[in-house]
């Protein structure tokens, strides 16, 4: 088992109108990418709550992809701009707290960028694979805590 190459678990948070559609195009174009990445559909990047990203790491994600419409292309006209600001701040906070922001890939992928989506996914898989499993979180996550024999304090 140990010799087997590490397969990271990656969650992708994407908006419905651009990246989800872009990933659909990757499919219709039959471009291949790693099966490690699984997509969760949001109406807009503006809907992506930073708490969900925290939850993803806590529940064993080794990497996260967040992707939406290019600036000015938002279906709701400005959701991605708001999201972008939040990411700037959130990323800064994570970094300051010692959470590895290398494991979070942000991207703009339009509905026409099927190839780009495959690239983003494959590159992220490679990057996270090189970083290895996210042990920090695995040490403090809930099942580990429960496994302790006597948590007295």
């Amino acid at each position, binding site marked *: 088992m140990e010799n087997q190459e590490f397969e990271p678990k990656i969650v992708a948070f994407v908006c419905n109108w651009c990246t989800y559609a872009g990933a659909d195009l990757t499919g219709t174009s039959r471009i291949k990418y790693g099966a490690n990445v699984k997509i969760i559909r949001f109406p807009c990047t503006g809907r992506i709550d930073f708490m969900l990203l925290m939850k993803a790491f806590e*529940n064993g994600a080794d990497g996260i992809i967040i992707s939406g419409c290019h600036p000015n292309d938002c279906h709701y006209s400005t959701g991605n701009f708001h999201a972008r600001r939040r990411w700037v701040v959130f990323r800064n906070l994570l970094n300051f707290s010692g959470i590895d922001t290398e494991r979070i890939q942000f991207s703009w992928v339009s509905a026409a960028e099927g190839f780009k989506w495959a690239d983003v996914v494959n590159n992220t898989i490679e990057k996270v694979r090189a970083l290895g499993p996210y042990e920090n979180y695995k040490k403090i996550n*809930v*099942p580990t805590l*429960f496994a302790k024999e*006597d*948590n*007295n*304090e």
Partner: protein
Amino acid sequence: MEPIIKIIKSASLATIVDKLKGRYPRLYAPVKKQELVELEVINGFNDIAQDYLLTTQSVKKLAFPRVEKILDYTLQKGNIQQQSPDTSNFPETVLFGIRPCDASGFRSLTAIFNGDKPDEFYKSRYEKLIIISFACNKADAYCFCTSVGGNPGNTEGSDIQFTPVDNDEMLVEILTEKGKAVADLFSDLLSDCDKPVDKQAYLANVPVVFDVNKVIDNTTKSFNNEMLWINQSLRCIGCGACAFVCPTCACFDIQDEQNMKQGARLRLWDSCGFSLFTLHTSGHNPRHIQSHRWRQRLMHKFSYMPEQLKVVGCEGCGRCSRACPVDMNIKEHLLQIAEL
């Protein structure tokens, strides 16, 4: 049992710690951590804080942990397995160097947890505790143990109590059978007490500020005195610091934490100071303002507990006042109530 009085050289404490360490699986003692003094597992005598009044948190966590798992379960379709943790296997644990007010605090906790039907977790943990307390030779402006029936040399709840006396010696009081068994480990270091020692003379001076019975009476009578509670708690910001550092606060919350596969039921410290404490699902909150919560805190300790459990829910350690972000000194408030 009758207490056995002995004398020991202060210098022998290190040896005692080593012996305890060799005999018991866990040894807790006050440890200095930056600004805090915390009760921690120690490896040797040198880990122990040299000069401390009290630990920042009380010792209650050893019998009533911050987070305690009381149930484990796994989830599978149509098959939910559950399992309670084994309470018979808690390790024997020595608490070395805690203060008399902490030791006596177990009286309240025991009254609450083991009242009508013993709480399996508390009971099992408490039974495994060996309590070696150090009498206080100093006190601060927050201390008021003498006003609530305690004193700096109170032996209640301790198995052994040490009191520093003259000539780098310490008075040793072996108080229980459990204590005697422990003392046997270092009986070679103990010498007999040839002449009676006036223990009181070596204790800190903690003046009595109020008559606790007056407080109990007046608290009970003042339930409807809105302005009293409002004025007392106007600066209360509603955090849980007081309850969490208190050696006798025993309120808890039950929460399940689970993912898709497994989960656990946890018992967690809670505080009556939180607005959420009594919030109903409907949105109604019977204690909707902070003064009601403050009233509850005092009523609980000085009215309900004396009435129902025959104990005062306060040891006079003053931790709540020290921890209070806005300096609500409980001593002052109790004095005000006593003088009503």
